[in-house]
């Protein structure tokens, strides 16, 4: 039995999942229309679809960029980029939980700062995780920042 549940060292490549990150994007997609005064069901559906597309693009672009920029590392460990992005994107969870609390408990209508901080933090952490796994060069920090900036503006 695995007694080290939740320990980073115990997490093998197959354990890094991307669905928590997609779920965070979906939750933000649902929350954002609720924070607007003119709430409509069609807005929720549009927002949800946009959130799914943004999530898919952000995650897969990051994986693609890390793979492209670290060809040697990719040959040694084909799953390194997916692992780095999967681990980094887990950092969206605290921001998503806080956004739910802000909207449901505190009745704030400012959800965008939460989404913005979530994407930037998660992308930056993905870059740090890639470097921890052996990726080299400032591009591994610059690319996530750039991706986060693009998706923050379109989120």
């Amino acid at each position, binding site marked *: 039995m695995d007694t080290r549940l*939740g320990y*980073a060292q115990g997490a093998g490549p197959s354990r890094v999942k991307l669905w928590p990150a997609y779920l965070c994007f979906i939750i933000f997609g649902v929350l954002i229309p609720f924070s607007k005064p003119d709430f409509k069901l069609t807005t929720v559906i549009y927002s949800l679809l946009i959130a799914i597309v943004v999530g898919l693009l952000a995650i897969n672009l990051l994986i693609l960029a890390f793979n492209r920029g670290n060809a040697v590392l990719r040959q040694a460990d084909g799953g390194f980029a997916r692992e780095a992005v999967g681990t980094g994107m887990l*950092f969206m969870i605290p921001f998503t939980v*806080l956004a739910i*609390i802000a909207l449901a408990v*505190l009745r*704030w209508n*400012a959800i965008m700062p939460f989404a913005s901080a979530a994407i930037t933090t998660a992308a930056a952490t993905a870059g740090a995780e890639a470097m921890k796994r052996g990726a080299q060069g400032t591009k591994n920090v610059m690319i996530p920042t750039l991706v986060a900036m693009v998706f923050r503006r379109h989120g």
Partner: protein
Amino acid sequence: MNTAAPMEIPRWKTALSMMINPGEVIKTQMTKIPWPYSVMVSGLSFTLFFLQTGLDMLKTGQIGASTVILITMLGLLYGTVGIALLAVMVWALSQAKQRDYTLGWTISTFALGYSATFVYALSGLNFSLAFGWKTAVAFGVTGILWALRPTLYTIKQLSGKRVAFSIAITPLCGAILLIGWAVLGKFAG
């Protein structure tokens, strides 16, 4: 033989690095930062944040100048005693004593994480004073959100690199801070 002494990194640089690369700062530089310095950073951050809250309420006529001063003082208390208490709670929950992390180290690391809040609060105050904007939420709350990354790394370090645990405790800390701010704002107003 290399006899050159290792270069001392200025404390303000360590505070700024905490925003960009908290993982590295926590692992390598926090032993050189005394806790009063870190608590000063978080204290100033929340003083400026609460000052903006007071100024926003003053602009809408909800409170007078004396209440702005009271809210600002509450911010100082929140950023020093409040953050230290939050750090103690995290230290206890993560059983950091078993990993030889002292309370002083924990408070120092936790408090220095709010350097991002300080930068946002300072920028917000400029916009509040120069352009009359309401900045408490736009800059203050955003500043607290940006401090969540160092908080998460601190909890991860204290808990023996338990990622799931740190992800669960970080929103708790954020929620305590945000709800506390909202309650204090209402109480003072």
